[in-house]
């Protein structure tokens, strides 16, 4: 996946805005890498869950053209 290529859905925009600059950077890097840190959601093959730090869960999907679209960021 192309690096530095995330888009944020409207619904997740406010959540993304509340991340620190470092968290936003970490999230961009995280989603630009394929690997075991992403868990594919059951029954929804284009959607993945990734952990950001100790207590944040990120729902995202592959949006085409090498982009990852962030759908939700929640504190867990």
């Amino acid at each position, binding site marked *: 996946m192309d690096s530095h290529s995330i888009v944020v*859905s*409207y*619904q*997740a*925009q*406010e*959540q993304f*805005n*509340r991340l620190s600059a470092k968290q936003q950077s970490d999230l961009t890097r995280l989603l630009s890498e394929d690997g075991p840190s992403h*868990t594919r*959601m059951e029954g*929804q093959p284009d*959607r993945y*869950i990734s952990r950001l730090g100790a207590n*944040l*869960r*990120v*729902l995202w999907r592959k949006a085409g053209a090498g982009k990852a679209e962030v*759908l*939700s*960021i*929640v*504190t*867990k």
Partner: protein
Amino acid sequence: MDFGKIAFSAIQAQTELTSFSAWMAAHEYFGERVVLNEIAARPQMACLLGFTIMMPASDLIKFEFGIKGLFRADLAIGNDKSRQFVLVEFEGGEHDSLFKGGTRKYRHWSARLERGFGQVVDWGWAKHSHPGDAVFTSSFGGKVFDDCYIVVCGRNPPVGSLEEQRFDFRRTRVQLNGVPVRFYTYDNMLDAMTDNLAALLAR
């Protein structure tokens, strides 16, 4: 404090969201009072809107939340420890709830949407004018550290329409004295709740 306590359960929220989704599927258009009753009957689902600002799970909830005895929010949810709150105004989900009147080329924003936003402006004024006022803070049980206002109104405009582009701009660019104001259609609200819940339920 005017809030009631709630112990958030993602599993219960999922059950309520599933039934609300079915209700939405069976009702293309609906009035404010009808949909508000449906949402009030599903308090766990309503708490999913709290994740809009990444606050920990809501433990405070109040429908018909009064602000300084003058104003009212249809729904207020919050987390007591983090002192974060989300205030929500629900309008109808009619075909003309977002835009009404005007010409074919330029439709007017509806009075319903403007009324909803007008209430949000009043909430902002109530907080801004005397943020430490005892009447204000007592409603919230203390200070408000972080908040967000949401207006839910109408159904999605036609894809690719001028109305969709105008609504997209409005819903992404409005702040009120530093407090974000989010505009959701009921379709947007359902999507946001569904995505927030999926992230919450993931292991």
